[in-house]
């Protein structure tokens, strides 16, 4: 085992502050506390001998010093099949996690943060008696310079209890140093998970370390809103009999991110059902969902969600959002291979190489494969990189009157990275996407074979048609986009059916000139009217027919 206290500091491009596990915080006062009715006291079994001393912690007179390294067993995906490759499992450091030293009563007597090697050192004044090390599945820094964050991995099927990894006990000596390492095992015995899957939460946390580090690399003072990552071995791709989710029972539908008051803010649910679909080791899946947290917390995402798979001709907002998620996983983890494992023994799976251009018939502004390829390669381009991408995502994209989609993003990116215009244009051209600088993509000529797809934003006058040519719900053509101008003030917007198909139900969302959005989803057949207060300028509107099932339906639009 390496010497944890002589571990290398963070890499030069790391924006994380130094996290020396050798600088413990004393909790002398806490050490005097007694357990208050909790059931977290150490097991009565005698502590085993300390680990062989290899850390370089220095003994302190009058204090006990405990050092060690926290690791978890990491199982990689097969780079070709995506299946989990248990034969290649290895111990990796638990980085940036809160570590505690507990006394025999279960009271925390010292706390620190593991460093990039997983190392920690505690120093506590006076005798402590038996102690053990607890590593929390948590990265938390809520004050001070150098960024702030609060990420935790919890069990949604156990009342959202925080996962912690507990070491065996050890008996330190005043004035001496003892070592107690702790490792989270996978629980896999070669054929199945017969043991406790202790590594799972820490594998998830490891992804968060990398994704947040990527953001901090260009925004060192970033304050991340709290995010709970809910994982359980009971988390199944299932719903209750009526189709609703029951996250307390593990019926989570699929791995997903959401932000809602009912879930207590930003939360990411992850699958854990063995032999079916479990995602704790599918790091790109975790990073993909974290990418949606990033969008929600720091950017703007107009995606309407819905079913999608590579090869679909999608609503441009969905293509952008999902392409971003896939690309982000590659960008943040430093590997373009998105891998997802599952089925019996986690021995099946698939990969997506986001660095690889999709086939010609899957290229376009409506293709998530094109978006993921472009995003990944914008990041990789020496003349662009992540800094401008971050600046656009967190800046100009949020206030753009156009919906979040590739023309909008690419135009703003070229403004943010003028030295990269040539590279950006070359990449766009290679994906059959207009290179003209225009957030509305007016010069686009690629219709994807959908008759109503172009122009992407129509003028307010004339017919506005939606079509099921490429599919329903979130596919290209099911939403019609248009542009209109107003003065500042209150305006009445009306959409009315003009081709006489009974039973249409037009709804719309408006993105105002300042990027703010308003929705209208009345249930009056064939008509939608709303009075909105708008700033002056050019606004955009996305129109859908909630009842569209086939064919094409057209509407008139008026604004007064």
């Amino acid at each position, binding site marked *: 085992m390496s010497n944890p206290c002589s571990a290398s500091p963070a890499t030069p491009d790391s924006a994380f502050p130094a996290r020396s596990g050798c600088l413990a915080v004393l909790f002398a006062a806490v050490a005097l506390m007694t357990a*208050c*009715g*909790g*059931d*977290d006291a150490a097991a009565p079994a005698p502590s085993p001998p300390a680990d062989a001393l290899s850390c370089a912690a220095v003994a302190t007179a009058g204090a006990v010093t405990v050092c060690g390294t926290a690791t978890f067993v990491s199982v990689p995906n097969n780079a070709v099949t995506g299946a989990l490759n248990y034969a290649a499992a290895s111990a990796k450091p638990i980085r940036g996690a809160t570590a505690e030293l507990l006394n025999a009563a*279960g009271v925390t007597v010292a706390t620190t943060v593991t460093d990039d090697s997983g190392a920690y050192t505690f120093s506590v004044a006076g005798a402590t008696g038996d102690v053990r090390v*607890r590593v929390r599945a948590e990265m938390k820094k809520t004050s001070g310079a150098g960024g702030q964050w609060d990420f935790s991995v919890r*069990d949604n099927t*156990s009342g959202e*209890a*925080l996962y*912690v990894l*507990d*070491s065996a006990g050890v008996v330190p000596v005043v004035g001496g140093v003892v070592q107690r390492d702790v490792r*989270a*095992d996978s629980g896999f015995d070669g054929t199945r998970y017969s043991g406790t899957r202790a590594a799972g*939460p820490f594998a998830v946390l490891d992804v968060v370390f990398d994704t947040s580090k990527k953001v901090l690399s260009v925004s060192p003072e970033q304050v991340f809103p709290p995010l709970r990552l809910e994982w359980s071995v009971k988390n*199944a*791709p*299932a719903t209750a*009999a009526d*189709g*609703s*989710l029951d996250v307390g*029972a593990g019926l989570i*539908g*699929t*791995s*997903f991110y959401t*932000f809602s008051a*009912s879930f207590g803010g930003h939360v990411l649910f992850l699958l854990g*059902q063995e032999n079916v*679909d479990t995602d704790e080791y599918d790091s790109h*899946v975790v990073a993909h*969902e974290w990418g949606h947290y990033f*969008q*929600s917390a720091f950017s*703007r*995402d*107009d*995606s*309407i*969600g*819905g*079913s*999608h*798979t*590579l*090869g679909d001709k999608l609503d441009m907002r969905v293509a952008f959002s*999902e392409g971003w998620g*896939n690309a982000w996983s590659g960008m943040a983890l430093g590997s373009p291979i998105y891998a997802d494992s599952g089925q*019996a023994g986690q021995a*099946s799976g*698939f990969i997506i190489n986001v660095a690889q251009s999709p086939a010609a018939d899957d290229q376009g502004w409506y293709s998530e494969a094109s978006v993921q390829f472009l995003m990944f390669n914008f990041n990789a381009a020496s003349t662009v990189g992540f800094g401008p991408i971050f600046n656009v995502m967190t800046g100009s994209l949020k206030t753009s009157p156009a919906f979040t989609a590739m023309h909008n993003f690419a135009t703003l990116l070229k403004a943010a990275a003028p030295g990269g215009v040539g590279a950006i244009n070359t990449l766009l051209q290679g994906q059959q996407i207009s290179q003209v600088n225009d957030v509305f993509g007016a010069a686009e000529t690629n219709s994807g074979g959908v008759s109503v797809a172009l122009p992407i934003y129509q003028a307010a006058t004339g017919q506005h048609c939606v079509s099921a040519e490429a599919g329903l*719900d979130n596919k290209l053509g099911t939403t019609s986009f248009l542009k209109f101008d107003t003065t500042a003030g209150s305006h009445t917007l009306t959409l009315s059916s003009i081709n006489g198909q009974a039973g249409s139900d037009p709804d719309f*969302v408006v993105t105002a000139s300042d990027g703010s*959005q*308003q929705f209208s*989803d009345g249930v009056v057949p064939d008509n939608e009217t709303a009075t909105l207060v708008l700033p002056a300028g050019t606004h955009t509107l996305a129109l859908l027919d*909630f009842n569209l099932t086939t064919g094409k339906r057209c509407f008139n639009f008026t604004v007064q």
Partner: protein
Amino acid sequence: MNPLYRHAGLLVAALAFGAGPGCADSGTSSAAKATGGEPGNRQQVWVTAPPKPNGSGVVLKYSAPEALKPGEVATVKLQFSNVQAATGARLELRASDPAVKMVVEGGTVTGPITMVRGDFRELEVQVSSAVDGLYYLSVFTTQDGRFTATSIPLRVGSGESKQKVQGKVLTTPSGEKVVSLPGK
């Protein structure tokens, strides 16, 4: 900003256009939208299975009993659609536990099923278990090399999960609830 990123959402459009950011506060699932009962069968609710991000893209709808009695034979109905790949799609069914007996299409189907582009396929699966518990009928669909797994809950008797608890749920002296995992 639409705060809802449930990739599984079949008709998240309705949410996005419905209530804006607040729409995600319902806490109910858009991930699998119940599509209502069939005429003449008030007990039967068709559920659209949550699609997996980057998954197969095959659309699965199913109806399953809310609960079974031990030994009772019940029918799970499955519908598969949206097969677009030139190479078609593959379907496979598995029970999560040997305690579950599963018969597909009266025993005429015993292995994986293939679908060709444009296919629509319906299957009936008879399931039963003599032992109380929470079981799953797992449905795997594969298209273009990508898979989606769906677990259909089968609640038998008490319907309680027999899955082993991971770690030990504890309350710390400070009152925090934690799952203590054993380190090595």
